C-alpha cells in the first residue's frame, strides 16, 4: 500500500509550559530536512508555541495531561497536528477571532489563532467538548530552486529598470 506521506514523527509530552521550548525546537529540527529558510522555521516555531500553549492553559487548564504532536512531510509541505484530550473548545469560530480570550486575567492577548493563521498556510481546528482539541496546520517550504529563480528574476528586473532609466 502506498503511504500518503514521505516522512513522519510523533511526540508526546506532559502538559507543562516548560515543555514549550522543547516542542517548538523538536518540530523545527524535524522540518529542517526540507531545508527551510530561517524565516520559515521561525514561523513554524511561533505557530507551534501558540498551539501548545493553548492545549496547556486552555485545554488542560494547567492541570495534568498529555500533549501530542504529529508531523508529516508530503513532498515540500509539512503538516503538523497538535492534539490534546482536554476540555475542548465550545465555540471554535469565536475562539479563533482576533483578540478573543477566555482568560484576560492571565495577560493573554487572544492572538494565538490569528498568529497561527498568519504564519502558516492553513490552520484547521477540530474540537469536541469534554474530549479535546486537534489543531492541524500546513506550511509549504519554498524549494531552493524557486528562490534562485526569484533572485534571477530580481536581477533581471533590476537590469530592466536600469535599462529603462538609462534610455
Amino acid at each position, binding site marked *: 500500500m502506498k503511504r500518503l506521506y514521505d516522512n513522519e514523527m510523533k511526540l508526546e509530552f506532559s502538559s507543562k*509550559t*516548560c515543555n*514549550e*521550548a522543547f516542542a*517548538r525546537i523538536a518540530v523545527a529540527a524535524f522540518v529542517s530536512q526540507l531545508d527551510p529558510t530561517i*524565516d520559515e522555521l*521561525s514561523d513554524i*516555531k*511561533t505557530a507551534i*508555541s*501558540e498551539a501548545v*500553549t493553548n492545549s*496547556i*492553559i486552555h485545554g488542560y487548564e494547567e492541570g495534568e495531561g498529555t500533549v501530542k504532536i504529529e508531523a508529516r512531510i508530503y513532498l515540500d509541505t509539512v503538516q503538523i497536528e497538535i492534539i490534546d484530550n482536554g476540555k475542548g473548545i465550545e465555540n471554535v469560530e469565536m475562539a479563533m477571532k*482576533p*483578540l478573543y480570550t477566555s482568560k484576560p486575567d*492571565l*495577560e*493573554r*492577548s487572544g*492572538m*494565538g489563532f*490569528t*498568529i497561527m493563521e*498568519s504564519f502558516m498556510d492553513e490552520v484547521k481546528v477540530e474540537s469536541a467538548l469534554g474530549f479535546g482539541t486537534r489543531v492541524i496546520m500546513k506550511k509549504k517550504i519554498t524549494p531552493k530552486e524557486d528562490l534562485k529563480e526569484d533572485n534571477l528574476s530580481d536581477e533581471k528586473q533590476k537590469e530592466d529598470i536600469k535599462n529603462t532609466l538609462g534610455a
Partner: protein
Amino acid sequence: MISKYDKENKILTLIITEEIDQHTADNIRRKLDNEIEIYNSKKVIFDFTNITFMDSSGIGMVLGRYKLVKMLGGEFELINVNRRLKKIFDMSGVSRIIKINNEGLIAKEENNEEAI
C-alpha cells in the same frame, strides 16, 4: 535581562535577552516590574535587539508594562523590534498604542549591507 539607567536623563533601558513564551513570561514580567518600580524613571525603553523568540505571550507582557509605566507617569518605548516581532505587534494593535523606534535597527542593517 540587562538593565541600564541613565541618571542624568532619568531613562531606564531594559534589554530583554530571554526567549518569551508562556513559560518564561511570568518570570520576565516580575523582573521588569521590579526594575520599573525601583527606578520610577521619566522614560522606560524595552530593547528587543537580543530576542531570538517571542510568541503572543509577549503582547500581554508589553501591554501590561506599558500600563504600569503610564500609571507611574512615565513614557514608554520599544526599540530594535525585528520584522517578525513587528508583525506580531502590528496584528495585535500594540504598535498603534506604543511607540516603536527602529532607527537603531535600520542603521545597523545599512552598515551590514555596506560591509558585504
